[in-house]
């Protein structure tokens, strides 16, 4: 099923994105390149202190630092998992972490170099728990790369 030499794998840590990781490794030719774009959705995590007003600034700072550490740890675990799978298949693996709006980051990165294929996960089915943040929106129609959307793991 190998079909591409240069794949852009886009994910932002959801369950659906993890299914896309496996597919990207499967679709990439031996010796090929997988560029892993991980987006940390800015608006989602920025809003996590919500309308708290009772706490002192130090408590809010502690919380922000803690949340950043958590997200960074999760991103590292994510990268390690894909890197290991890529190494096992002798693929060249590069990674990029961006804090921003998922669709905007995806479009920008897809234009940076010529990719044969973009692989990404599908939105979470209704009723399945998980973070609600989508990469696939109307604006991603302007992507100029052949795209594979991988079904959600349980589908």
């Amino acid at each position, binding site marked *: 099923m190998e079909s591409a030499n240069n794949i852009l794998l886009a994910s932002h840590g959801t369950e659906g994105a993890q299914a896309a990781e496996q597919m990207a490794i499967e679709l990439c030719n031996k010796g090929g390149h997988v560029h892993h774009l991980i987006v940390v959705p800015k608006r*989602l995590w920025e809003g996590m*202190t919500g*309308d708290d007003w009772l706490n002192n600034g130090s*408590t809010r700072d502690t919380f922000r630092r803690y949340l950043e550490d*958590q997200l960074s740890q999760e991103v590292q675990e994510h990268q390690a998992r894909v890197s290991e799978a890529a190494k096992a298949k002798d693929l060249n693996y590069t990674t990029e972490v961006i804090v921003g709006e998922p669709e905007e980051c995806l479009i920008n990165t897809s234009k940076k170099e010529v990719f044969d294929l973009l692989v990404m996960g599908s939105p979470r089915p209704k009723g399945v*728990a998980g973070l*609600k*943040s989508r990469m696939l929106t109307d604006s991603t129609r302007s992507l100029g790369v052949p795209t594979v959307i991988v079904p959600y793991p349980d589908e």
Partner: protein
Amino acid sequence: MVYTKKSPALLIIGIVLLAIWYLAQSGMMNGYLEHLAMGKKYKMMSELTTLPLYFGVISAVLGAWQLFGSHKEGHFDYYSSTIAGGMFILLIAMLVRWFVAPEVAVVSHAMGKVGETGKYIHKLLGLNYVVLGILAGIIVVNVFKVPEWAQNGVRLSRLGLKTGVILLGTLYSAAELKNLGGLSIVMIGFFVLGSVGMTLWIGARRNIPNSMGGVLSAGMGVCGVSATVAAAPVVQAKSVEIAYTIGTILLWGVGCMFVFPIVGHLFGMSYIQFGAWAGTGILNSAQVAGAALAFQPDGIETLKVAEIFNITRVLVLPIIVLWLAVWYVRREEGAAQVNVGEVIFNKFPVFVLGFILLFALSTTGIFAPANHYKGKYFNNTTDFKESKLLKAEDKATLQSELGKVEREDRKAALGRLIENGKVMSIDDDDVLRGLVNSKVLSKDANHILKHAHKAVRHTAKKVKAFRHWIVWLFAFGLTGLGMQITVASMKQAGGQPAVIGGIVGATKAILSLVVVLMLISDKV
């Protein structure tokens, strides 16, 4: 890094404010204001012809300096960068208070009363300037995004609310604070411990991780998002657990802000009853203030009660965080040990000291004469002008409606008013104000009761000024907090936290309603 942006935004805000002032001052706006007042006198004319001038001049001068001046790194630069955002919130709060809220009332009147409720839809939903200000903030952040030049200043909303609470300290009598404090300790103690325990218990039954149970119980039990922010690092919550919890609390809180005032009016609750219920039953502290001001937009008695409950909650917070920390360490291997002193010191709400300080100052009579709280004109016939006594036709109106009143305390207070032609005690005054708010009587009768209240309650000038500032500080703070409620975070409500949060939140709201209705009267 230089934070002050060379943007024309602050200058433009200044020009807009000055234009509003000019239009109001010159009378060019009279036609529109008459339309907003619906045949009555436009109530906020004095604000409209002063505040935009003061803040317009400040904004225009500072805006010109920010745009054309040079700026260097440093503390001053950071503080300067917050001005534009602060003025942005203020402008929105002003527009909502002076124009949007009255316009909503006009549209609501045009739509007619809702079914058999006999109320207009804006009254039913509590769509006043405070709630609409929060909604305007939510719309700004989610539809347009907070502009970059305003982002530092939006954080000033917290300062606004904390200053509002500190100033509230000037408005309590010692007896009031003692009684409300006692009531809030009992209510908050019972419901906080109950809901934290209930969340942990249900969480264990549903096999959720300890970290999720810990963070969820703090949010559900103590003060919503603030408690989640304080407890998450201590129980080592995962990012997705934090997102679930905060999403659930925000969604629930915003919903409660609309539902609580409707229920409060349906049950004819007094200010004290509603303040106590909102202060206990609403999960998130920001929406407690919002609901209190939605319930009583033309006064701050309900807010005074609700904020005592908020203060009690935040004082309980370090204790609950410690409890959860110990609970988590016992259950999770490798969890970091807790430094008790550090938790208490870091989490202690410093602004509460400001509240206590101003309360202490007010008891010395520095802001109002001692007889302000005793009520100089109650029971006192020598100082009371005879012209202010109820007229025979007023007494007849009240007498004809006495049958509508069911509660004995209200009936007795109304009876004494009819008999003596004036309100006879502070307790009677509190009960009768509750009766007005419950809207059991006709408009005419309520009008007479409001006059009777004014005849005996003379507010000291400084206290009046504090009330005015408090209302503005809360309007400013809540509008700014609205700008920090993102739909992206609310959308995360789901999974087990939504189920557990729904059960615990509903139980807490219903049980506290029952307790308040059964045990709390119109006065403290």
